[in-house]
């Protein structure tokens, strides 16, 4: 597991920056709620009656009049998007950074199987995503405690489980893309996550593209859905898990016989 440790160390700076930035931003927004509360409460009704905009943001299901509703519609959405972007950056860079940084000739001429390299790197990616979500969730819980809000542990756990899976799915798809190219495609990875995020909002409004919900993992990690239904969408999660596993296997297979030239 030398490479796993190495990979964690290499990622540690980026990890800390992202985790603190996302965690503190969202925590800040939670703490801001008390100052918004009065004005928001008055507007909560009108927010839930804005037609498709309310639908896209889940405000037809949850009311902004409670911190719980505010969390499910605003904070969770922010966490979803930023988390997905973090996962995309990690996923695209995981393998391709060795080639982009010209270290592939050093790493891959050490006696270590390529499959094992891919596996350990992927494990480091999973650890990063899980730690990121754990730390952020912990910060949000502290925010709730500070605000004196009652915490529904089950729905919080379900949401953070779903969002972690969503991030892993996006990161793995980016990982797959990166196995086919030489350059570091951070930009493309970010593009993928933002497009999938937008796809989720659109497919909720436009019946014509409703089927996009099977494609975008943001659909099953939507906190407003999870909070109102009190459970996860099993079918969607299964599709997501399937996409993740298949992407990983294709990436692994492709990487085994990839030409590594500096």
């Amino acid at each position, binding site marked *: 597991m*030398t*490479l796993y440790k*190495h990979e964690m160390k*290499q990622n540690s700076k980026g990890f800390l920056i992202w985790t603190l930035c996302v965690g503190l931003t969202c925590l800040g927004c939670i703490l801001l709620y008390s100052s918004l509360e009065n004005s928001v409460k008055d507007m909560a009704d009108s927010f839930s009656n804005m037609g498709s905009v309310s639908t896209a943001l889940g405000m037809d299901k949850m009311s902004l009049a409670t911190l719980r509703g505010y969390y499910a519609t605003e904070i969770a959405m922010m966490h979803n998007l930023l988390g997905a972007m973090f996962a995309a950056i990690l996923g695209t860079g995981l393998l391709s950074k060795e080639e982009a*940084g*010209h*270290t*592939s*000739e*050093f790493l*891959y*001429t*050490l*006696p*270590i*199987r390529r499959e094992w390299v891919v596996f350990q790197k992927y494990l480091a990616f999973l650890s990063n995503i899980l730690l990121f979500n754990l730390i952020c969730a912990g910060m949000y819980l502290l925010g709730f405690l500070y605000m004196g809000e009652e915490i529904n542990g089950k729905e919080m756990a379900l949401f953070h489980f779903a969002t972690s899976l969503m991030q892993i799915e996006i990161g793995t798809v980016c990982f797959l893309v990166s196995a086919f190219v030489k350059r570091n495609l951070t930009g493309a990875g970010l593009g993928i996550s933002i497009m999938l995020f937008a796809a989720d909002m659109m497919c909720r409004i436009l019946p014509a593209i409703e089927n996009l919900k099977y494609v975008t993992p943001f659909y099953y990690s939507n906190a407003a859905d999870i909070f109102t239904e009190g459970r996860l969408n099993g079918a969607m999660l299964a599709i997501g898990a399937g996409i993740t596993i298949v992407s990983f296997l294709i990436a692994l297979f492709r990487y085994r*016989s990839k*030409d*590594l*030239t*500096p």
Partner: protein
Amino acid sequence: MENKEPAIEIKNLTKKYGKHRGVINLSLKVERGDIFGFLGPNGAGKSTTIRSLLGLIAFWEGRASILGMDVKSRQKDILKEVGYMPSEAMFYPSMKAGDIIRFAADIRGLDCKKEASMLCERLGVDLHKRIDELSLGNRKKISIVCAMQHKPKLFIFDEPTSGLDPLMQAEFFKLILEYNKQGAACFLSSHVLSEIKTYCRHAAIIREGQLICTDTVENLTKTNAKRIHMIKDGKEENFVYKGDLDKLFAGFFGHHIEDITIEEPQLDEIFMHYYEEGQK
């Protein structure tokens, strides 16, 4: 005896990058205990050959084996016995030199502290400097330590001396000769003819992806070509002459030769002739 198989054996290796030529139908053999030079102009296919041997790039035609092991099926076992130094000495920029060297040993699952500290001492590696603070030559030294610390049976070096100062080049070859005495073979690509002549026993010359010749360095540099410098009919002439000297002298008949020197050609002149042949 386990040392029977050649250190490197390549049979009809062909590697194409899409439509582009990499190497074509290359066959080569490096015996155990040899120091073998691999020469060729830029883009000839030296690095391509080396990367194919190490499994960094895949090839579909031909076979190759290292220390008797097939390079495709036993890559990991081969890499355990090989010390490789790439032409670009690049490492993780935020790591310290010492950490890189330890990382390489850890991945090998070996404790190479003793050998590594001896090498660092002799090459003057500063273990506490970060990689992004080091010059090319100093990164090359780290590369040398990583290639040598586990005392491999075979060294593969891709242009090892580029970027090293003359003192370090000498120390580097001294190290190779020491390991070679203990039985290690060495395969190195180079543009520097004099170092091939000084240190290698065998050499191969490659041009445009094809092997031109492989022989002992002695035979390769032995030639009947002569450098002729003379003043003929008041005109100065300076050229390399290859072939029958009688014919050359017969051509002088009826001319006035004021002065003539005939000497062995320079080493590069011999090799230029290998490089350029067929290009005309």
